[in-house]
């Protein structure tokens, strides 16, 4: 188990009584970026939320964060799971719009020694806009704030959900660069629709279809197989996917 940071076995999740994830099983390596892929609505976000206990779930979720000691997360509440060193960057940013940038960051500080300098270096714009209400930031700035909140703490795993969704291409590049920098020190489970970003960052790929895992393996192998891309992601060709 030395190369695994998270093991998910038979995870099922429900939202308002509706089954959204069914019997999902996969492992996340202890290094690099692992992409969680699939068409819209197949349960990628629900899988992430299920791991974190943000939605009703069943199944085994085991974390190997503390000196490789196995810790079951599936019986714990969300704040306890996060406190063990799991950072979360949600889909649609979910910054607190009525708090300032500085307050958003201060709220996220869990460590006694938060990595303020690291976040300031990575996103200097956030420093310049510290007093600005987060709700008035652009989408890209909000995404940087959302990432900054997660990177402030020394995490053992990052769960990052569609960080480039709805962003301008130039901002997508900045976000990808920030994730690449973060991935040097912490493994990342990344939900991402932009296959170019996946190609750039991910070593491994887990593919979900109909709420179940249908493929696990190398990201480059999966992305090199146009038939698989078309079948599981609904993208016509790899070239089109990359565009």
């Amino acid at each position: 188990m030395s190369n695994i940071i998270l093991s998910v076995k038979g995870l099922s999740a429900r939202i308002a009584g509706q089954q959204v994830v069914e019997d999902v099983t996969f492992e996340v390596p202890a290094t690099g970026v692992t992409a969680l892929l699939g068409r819209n609505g197949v349960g990628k976000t629900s899988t992430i939320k299920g791991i974190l206990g943000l939605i009703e779930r069943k199944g085994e979720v085991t974390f190997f964060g503390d000196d490789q000691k196995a810790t079951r997360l599936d019986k714990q509440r969300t704040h306890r799971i996060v406190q063990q060193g799991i950072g979360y960057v949600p889909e649609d940013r979910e910054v607190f719009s009525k708090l300032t940038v500085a307050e958003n960051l201060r709220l996220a500080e869990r460590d006694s020694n938060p990595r303020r300098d690291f976040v300031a270096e990575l996103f200097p714009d956030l420093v310049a806009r510290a007093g600005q209400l987060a709700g008035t930031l652009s989408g890209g700035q909000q995404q940087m704030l959302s990432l900054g909140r997660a990177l402030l703490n020394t995490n053992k795993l990052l769960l990052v959900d569609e960080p480039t969704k709805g962003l301008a291409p130039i901002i997508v590049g900045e976000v990808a660069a920030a994730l690449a920098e973060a991935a040097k020190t912490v493994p990342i489970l990344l939900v991402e629709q932009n296959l170019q970003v996946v190609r750039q960052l991910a070593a491994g790929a887990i593919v979900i279809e109909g709420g179940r895992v249908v493929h696990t393996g190398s990201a480059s192998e999966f992305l090199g197989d146009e038939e698989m891309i078309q079948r599981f992601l609904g993208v016509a060709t790899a070239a089109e996917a990359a565009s």
Partner: protein
Amino acid sequence: MSTVVLLLITGLGLGALYFLVASGLSLIYGLMGVLNFAHGSFLTLGAFAGWELARRLGSDNWGTFIASIALGAVVGAIFAAATEFFLIRRLYERHIEQVLVTVGLALASVALFDGIWGTDPIYVTGPKWLGGTTQILGASIPNNRFILILAAVLVLLGIVLFLKYTRYGLIIRAGVENRSMVTALGIDVRRAFTVVFAIGGAAAGIGGVLASSYYGYVAPSIGGSLLIFAFIVTVIGGLGSLSGAAIAAALVAVLQQFANFYLGGTGDFVVVLLLAVVLLVRPSGLLGSKA
């Protein structure tokens, strides 16, 4: 002119009382989505606690009056925190059950207060100045209205400073906006729930002691009768908005006073009419965020 001044200042005094109850209701709803029908009981218990202290220490001096307010705040806070911890905590996201439990607690606590203190009003006295009046622009304003306004301003200021400058305040402001994201940052938001209940209970407890001074008596039903107007204020101000509650409390009470005087005692009717208009024109309330 003197009548207008009298109605205006006494209206603001009554509005201050409404705010002391509505501030807690609004914060509790804003953070937790709980409509707390037992909130009036926090006020009533605070009022009785203040009266019990005053009758033991002698009610005619300022020291006792201030100590009664402090005790009312502490008792209200403890009762409210215990309500959250033992009853509400298990029922988050279960709104029907919350209503049943808080209505049940309100009924049970009034019955308990009846059993302890009797059903008849107990008349209270305070420092002599409170029973007097002060002349302002020809109007004789009852002095206890100034104390109510001062208390409401201090409570509003205290809550605003708490929300702005403390860690819990930050958690509460964030939690009002997106509770699940606060937990996803590794924060146990339930502690903030207890703190909010305690703050709301303390404000209601202060309101209880001051309400007994305003009405001249304390009775088991005192909280319930004020709770109705506090709910109206909370809805008009915008559920979850503290400043909305402050503005609506002043608006509702002043309107009520003027309608009672100029429109033949129709104050309560006019307030309900205002509620209907706000719900039709601006359902989220004056400063509430749109759902």
